[in-house]
């Protein structure tokens, strides 16, 4: 184990800003992609269903 304490862990030997900046943006990129995709998929299903119901009437 490299880290004596939590503050030691977040500090990353003085490089905390660079490391957490990198990991943070990566996590943000993945999250944004997943959320956008979920929303788009739900929207597609909703509009397709609406079209289907409209056709049935």
């Amino acid at each position, binding site marked *: *184990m*490299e*880290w004596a304490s939590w503050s030691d*862990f977040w500090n*990353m*030997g*003085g*490089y905390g800003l*660079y*490391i957490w*900046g*990198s*990991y943070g*943006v*990566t996590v943000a*990129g*993945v999250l944004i*992609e*997943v959320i956008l*995709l979920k929303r*788009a*998929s739900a929207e*597609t*299903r909703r509009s*397709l*269903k609406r*079209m*289907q119901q409209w056709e049935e009437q």
Partner: protein
Amino acid sequence: MNLYTYASPANFYRLAGKLIPWFAWGAGILTVWGLYISFFMAPTDFQQGEAYRIIFIHVPAAWMSMFIYMVMAFWGAIGLAFNTRLSFMMARALAPTGAMFTFVALWTGALWGKPMWGAWWVWDARLTSELILLFLYIGIIALWAAIDDIRRGDRAGSLLTLIGAINVPIIYFSVKWWNTLHQGSTINLMKAPSMAKIMLLGMLVLAIAAWFYTIAVALVRVRRVILERERQTEWVKAILEKEN
């Protein structure tokens, strides 16, 4: 049941639905494992201190950005040659993830470069070709967005992907060569310090996690595209009915 069965959108839709959870969970577990290796098992680098821990995401992201582009070019070529609808859908489904990884690679490269070389950005061959790769991704996505006609969009985007695939290596070598002429001795990025096995393992695990993530996301996207394109067919109607 042979392999060709899955080339039909209806069967592929079902197969993808079964595969997605496996890849998504795989990606999650591998990410946790990879992060554990990179923060708690890998030792402090004696040259770079803790800052080197950025490479655990930088290198996999950079690999993914290039692999995904190659896979897109492959599917595009298959689609153009054999006129298979599914291959074009795969190419389209991969592009946004590829662009995302390219951006992450550039961003983490800058944040790694600053403490290591004292500069956020250097015009070295790898960074520059990565930037051009991002431009290519954006161009391809923009072209797809601009063309409403599905058939035309599929083919036009794939042609652009292909000509880009020929161009990226040329750009890489031209910038590399241009660099040796301009600033030959300043920084040599190619000479990576020898890496401990545990560091390599962390990078590999996260790279496989990125692969799993890409596959899961691409399959979700393909399923969405299939639903949209096949909305007139009976099987799509049946699926939507069942969900109601």
